[in-house]
């Protein structure tokens, strides 16, 4: 019995000690208690208790304000740790939507590591503060943004035309009052894209200028060219209070990423879909080859530097991007997160994109070409060559555009080249609408700067000797285009898509003139390294090419 008494005594004391330790741990040594006791409001120390923002319709109970006390509703301005400071004015009040809707992280947690989501088993850690505006992507991935060039053109127009004299933009400008001291300020345009603006702003400005006599209306505003006005429109539509994110999306739109990747069902199939790339669970990512902190942002950056190192077997070429470009792309990737919030909370751009079928990108030719085509065909249609892949055709080449009809281009874009890298971009596959394909074709014409040469001949006028053609093909074409026209260094000629769309003139002229600036030299041009082909010979080659048309 003595032994049992001893056991009871000591186990009781141990249990008591453990419980006291647990109680102290919970009631005294909590991180947030320390933060709050160090804070002081206008009337002395603040109450130490758990604080939270509850938004029932978003199923949010964010306790971030337990430490970030200054961001809670109705809290006095508190001094002390930088943690306690107020939330910057970004257009959204954390007390209306909570914190995690934008910043991600684990809102219900009350310890820093857990709350910021830097823990195992929390799939959506906080977006790093340097990429904080990527959080806007939860609801605002849908803003229509043009390419970097067009955005820059808009910004230049904005500065050149002295808009900053009266209008504030991202904290700059707006020093003059159009009606003199005491008059109304020019509206701040930093959020103008989110709040919408008058379509007839230019006419309204002109009218005001007509009424005014002297002052900024005369000095700083004058008639604008059509181009400047278009550029300004595109620029202003993208002013939503997140200039860096817009720049990031513009970069994405300029590099042709959608040529391989789908976002919300629009884009190519060669790479993985990116619609929710920013919401990837870091717990399911292999960080073996990532330097620095093991978060999604660093993984993405490292992946852009060397895709195949991080994803074994990745087909994605090394794009040789600059570090600022990588940073922007990482920002855009992180913004691809589509928060699952009730529709009542959706902003108008999301409703328009997901319910009314509007695009998440500008639908001008440059942006469409930049988004879908630039990665393979080059930013200006000069073609592209990646290590380990066949060269991509230069579709901005004037020799090509001079003989390729709009129907040929449209059909090629809509249906692609079966079996080749060029996919089909029509609705149902790549997702481009007929009107958008027409816009791209028009943009291609403007890239080449040449019009289609008129051709009065029938689509199939060539009558040549197929046997001679086969012989000539073996001698002159096979090396680049493959013994059976399957393609190699040069495009595949036995492709059903090509042969069905191409007119005889197209084939004939392409062989005759070649393509300036590419490996394909014109065979009618005098050359020191190979014989010149006469027209009948070229015709017989075309006839030979046609003989592939009916083969399986």
């Amino acid at each position: 019995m003595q032994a049992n008494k001893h056991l009871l005594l000591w186990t009781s004391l141990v249990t008591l000690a453990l419980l006291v330790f647990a109680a102290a741990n919970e009631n005294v040594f909590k991180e947030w208690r320390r933060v709050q006791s160090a804070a002081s409001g206008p009337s002395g120390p603040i109450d130490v208790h758990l604080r939270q923002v509850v938004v029932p319709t978003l199923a949010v109970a964010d306790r971030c304000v337990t430490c970030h006390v200054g961001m809670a509703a109705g809290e006095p301005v508190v001094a002390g740790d930088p943690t306690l400071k107020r939330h910057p004015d970004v257009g959204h009040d954390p007390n209306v939507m909570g914190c995690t809707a934008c910043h991600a992280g684990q809102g219900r947690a009350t310890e820093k590591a857990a709350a910021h989501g830097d823990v195992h088993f929390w799939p959506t850690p906080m977006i790093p503060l340097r990429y904080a505006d990527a959080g806007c992507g939860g609801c605002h991935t849908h803003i229509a943004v043009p390419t970097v060039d067009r955005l820059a053109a808009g910004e230049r127009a904005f500065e050149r035309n002295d808009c900053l004299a009266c209008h504030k933009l991202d904290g700059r400008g707006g020093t003059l009052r159009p009606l003199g001291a005491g008059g109304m300020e020019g509206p701040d345009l930093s959020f103008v894209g989110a709040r919408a603006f008058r379509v007839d702003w230019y006419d309204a400005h002109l009218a005001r200028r007509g009424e005014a006599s002297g002052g900024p209306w005369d000095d700083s505003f004058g008639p604008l060219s059509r181009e400047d006005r278009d550029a300004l429109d595109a620029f202003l539509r993208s002013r939503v209070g997140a200039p860096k994110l817009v720049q990031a999306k513009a970069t994405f739109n300029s590099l042709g990423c959608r040529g391989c990747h789908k976002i919300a069902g629009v884009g190519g199939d060669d790479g993985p879909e990116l619609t929710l790339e920013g919401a990837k669970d870091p717990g399911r990512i292999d960080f073996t080859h990532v330097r620095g902190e093991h978060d999604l942002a660093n993984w993405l950056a490292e992946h852009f530097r060397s895709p195949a190192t991080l994803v074994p077997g990745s087909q994605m070429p090394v794009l040789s991007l600059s570090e600022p470009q990588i940073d922007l792309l990482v920002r855009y990737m992180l913004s691809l997160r589509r928060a699952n919030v009730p529709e009542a909370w959706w902003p108008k751009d999301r409703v328009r994109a997901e319910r009314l079928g509007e695009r998440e990108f500008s639908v001008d030719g440059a942006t469409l070409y930049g988004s879908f085509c630039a990665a393979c065909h080059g930013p200006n249609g000069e073609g592209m060559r990646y290590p380990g892949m066949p060269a991509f055709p230069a579709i901005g080449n004037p020799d090509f555009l001079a003989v390729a009809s709009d129907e040929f281009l449209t059909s090629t874009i809509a249906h692609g080249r079966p079996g080749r890298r060029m996919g089909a971009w029509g609705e149902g596959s790549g997702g481009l609408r007929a009107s958008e394909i027409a816009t791209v074709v028009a943009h291609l014409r403007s890239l080449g700067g040449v019009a289609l040469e008129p051709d009065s001949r029938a689509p199939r006028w060539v009558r040549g000797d197929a046997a001679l053609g086969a012989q000539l093909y073996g001698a002159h074409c096979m090396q680049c285009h493959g013994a059976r026209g399957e393609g190699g260094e040069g495009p595949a000629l036995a492709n059903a898509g090509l042969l069905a769309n191409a007119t005889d003139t197209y084939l004939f002229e392409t062989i005759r003139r070649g393509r300036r600036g590419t490996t394909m030299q014109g065979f009618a041009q005098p050359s020191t390294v190979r014989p010149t082909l006469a027209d009948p010979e070229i015709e017989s080659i075309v006839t030979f090419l046609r003989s592939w048309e009916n083969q399986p």
Partner: protein
Amino acid sequence: MSSNAPIKPSRLDPEPVPRRDFLGKASLWAAAATGVFATLGIARLPKAAVLSSPSRKFKVTLPENLPEGQAFVPPGRSVALFRDKEGVHAVSIVCTHLGCIVKPNANGFECPCHGSRFAADGAVTKGPAPAPLPWRKVTVDGSDCMVDEDASVPPGTKA
């Protein structure tokens, strides 16, 4: 019954327990202390540290054509907002009797549960309510009003 003979000891007699069973007493007290401490800790659990209801400070935009003297009750909230020439004020619509939601009418408020009546300024005119309806703090910021249901202001305070 009395006898001088020595009584045979019986097992029913109090037995000679050790006079001081320090160890036994200490172990029992230690166990009891542990039990009490654990119970105290457990007793704290049902008292929630944070409530699952949303913050009682909120922003609301009054309808532009709200007639003077007519109440505007923001959906899901328990204050009635009024606007007149002097400004905006908010009156709690939680009955001070037993917490039913009172209904604004032409003369003030009426409680459907036990028949309390309140004047337009919240004063009790009839029924069991022990106190007038409190006025809540309102701050006007442009077209928005910030209402704090946790802060009361003296009746008559308008913003």
